[in-house]
């Protein structure tokens, strides 16, 4: 059944359908409607599970970690400063190998204070050991939260399901809400281990020596890589049951393309239109939407972009003094390929600044004309086309 839902409320529906036991959260724009909707559903008895009104994101994540260790299904959501505020606990969560799912609604990290979307908040958590999934719209976010639990509870690693603030979080679209019975079939309640076993008491996370530290980290690293395959399987199974699947990346018109645009998140929708227009003008443009950022989809990136002549990466984020984060990651991942494409980095759409299809078209035309790529990214707002 399709309902008109914002991206935030689509996520809240996914949390209800996933029969989450425990939610600890804290308000922050633009994530707050997720928190509010879950509180409402619990208080009206539409959702089982309980809500802990945390006094900070740091504590919300702390409680999610310990509740998860005690064997219940947990959820939280945050944005921007809130994600930054949890940073310590994000590392802790992945190291504790807890299957937490967190919705992240992108918003700039201050200063200056601002509210629009910008992926720097989640991308700066790149090395915290969380699986990161960037979604294009509310439907994908709803479906991905459910898939995320499946993957997370199989590999025991936490997952961020990420949408753009306002564009996706507040934009209302028809969203298909799956049947609970089918969800129960897809995502049965697992008997998660309670790691506080009174009959066999263990001391969790006590201090380890360097060899053991390395052993634990290597194990975590390898399991994180395995999450890619699990996600592909979870996505495929989801598709079979519900008729929707997304892949870890989504290629569009790349087979015969001479130039490819790379996007993540909501800007992908505008890039789709741009590719259609460019194609109608005889330009062989294609698109790769990156959904999975950690673990990094090396194989897919090489497969779809490795043979192109030119690749454009549009980053709605910035690592000051270096470049756009997706662009840098793509460059690094393709360095060892024999025929790697030229990669052209652009920064734009910061703080939710609009990136309409025409911008993608103009950027593509300018890159087609370009003689060689640059190291330092071009800023879209400064460009005269």
């Amino acid at each position, binding site marked *: 059944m399709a309902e008109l839902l914002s991206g935030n409320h689509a996520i809240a529906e996914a949390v209800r359908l996933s029969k989450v036991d*425990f939610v600890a959260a804290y308000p922050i724009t633009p994530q707050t409607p997720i928190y509010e909707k879950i509180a409402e559903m619990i208080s009206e008895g539409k959702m089982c599970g309980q809500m*802990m009104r945390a006094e900070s994101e740091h504590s919300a994540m*702390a409680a999610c970690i*310990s*509740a998860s260790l*005690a064997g219940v299904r947990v959820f939280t959501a945050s944005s921007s400063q809130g994600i930054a505020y949890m940073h310590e606990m994000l590392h802790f969560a992945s190291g504790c190998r807890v299957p937490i799912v967190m919705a992240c609604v992108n918003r700039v990290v201050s200063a200056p204070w601002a509210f629009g979307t910008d992926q720097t908040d989640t991308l700066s958590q790149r090395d915290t050991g969380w699986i990161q999934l960037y979604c294009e719209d509310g439907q994908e976010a709803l479906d991905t939260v459910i898939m995320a639990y499946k993957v997370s509870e199989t590999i025991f690693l936490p997952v961020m399901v990420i949408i753009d603030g306002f564009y996706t979080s507040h934009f209302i679209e028809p969203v298909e809400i799956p049947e609970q019975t089918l969800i129960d079939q897809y995502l049965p309640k697992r008997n998660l281990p309670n790691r506080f076993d*009174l009959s066999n*008491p263990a*001391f969790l996370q006590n201090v*380890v020596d360097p060899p053991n530290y390395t052993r634990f980290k290597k194990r975590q690293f390898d399991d994180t890589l395995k999450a890619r395959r699990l996600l592909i399987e979870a996505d495929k199974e989801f598709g079979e049951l519900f008729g929707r699947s997304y892949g870890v990346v989504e290629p569009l018109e790349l087979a015969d393309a001479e130039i490819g645009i790379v996007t993540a998140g909501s800007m992908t929708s505008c890039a789709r239109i741009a590719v259609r227009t460019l194609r109608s003008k005889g330009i062989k443009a294609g698109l790769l939407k990156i959904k999975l950022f950690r673990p990094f989809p090396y194989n897919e990136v090489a497969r779809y972009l490795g043979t192109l002549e030119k690749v454009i990466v549009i980053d709605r984020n910035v690592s000051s003094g270096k470049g756009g984060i997706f662009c840098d990651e793509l460059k690094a991942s393709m360095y060892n390929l024999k025929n790697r494409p030229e990669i052209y980095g652009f920064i734009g759409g910061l703080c939710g600044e609009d990136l309409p299809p025409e911008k993608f078209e103009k950027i593509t035309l300018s890159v087609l004309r370009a003689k060689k790529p640059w190291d330092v990214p071009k800023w879209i707002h400064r460009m005269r086309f």
Partner: protein
Amino acid sequence: MDTQDEILRKGHYACPGCGLAIAMRLVLRAVGRKAIAVIVPSCEAVISGTYPFSALEVPAFHSAFAIAAPTAAGISRALKIRKETDVTVLAFAGDGGTYDIGLQSLSGAAERNEDFIYVCLDNEAYMNTGIQASSSTPPLSWTVTTPKGKVEKKKRLMEIIVAHSVPYAATATIGYPQDLMEKVKRAKEFQGTKFIHVLTPCPTGWKMKEELTGVIAMLAFETKVFPLYEVINGEIYRITKVPKGLPVRDYLSIQGRFSHLSEDEIEKIQQEVDIEWERLIYLAKRHEKV
């Protein structure tokens, strides 16, 4: 004491004469085996053992520094969801972890009345990182970061906790093990956030003789520096043991951290201790039936 009841094992890593280890041992004995302990960075984490060993005979989780309370809350809520309602969740944190970095998260949990016993192991400084001052460090005390003595007062933590109307809050010291254990047992009878503030002398940080730990703890009480009382529902204060009122000098003079004090300074501390004691009497009398 019967060794079968001991939950803190022998052979742990505490310094000789560590008051904190004694407090952990007593608290765990009083709580019993149906318990889960939250440990945070502090000497308590060192004492609890390194991988793959544990000095604790109950399940424990070494969480991050600022979050003893919400970590305990997460466990206690999860246990309730799992319908395991007969397990006590115990949060241990040092004075730094309670008075300073963990105060916000403790306040949040106490306001929500999360169900656990919180034990503040107060050795009056950041000992694990090498004796830096905290907001629990008493006035004029030497620490590495207050080489000429701390200027500020010791934060009145109990009043902050009491202001949350928690069902049970109490002070205790290892100088009076029976009193401490009784308070822990009483705490177990309440639903919600229980707070026990334990003074745990630290020979290393207080620059005192190892064998004096117990004596110092008793003197802290007898000089009224650390009164023993409990507060029910944030309202009813009850002084659980009446001190002799020995001069504070008896307590200060055997600790190196106070060896630089002048006569005037000792007198000043005496006056402040007397004022605090009067304040406690006032709070306790307020609720006496007329």
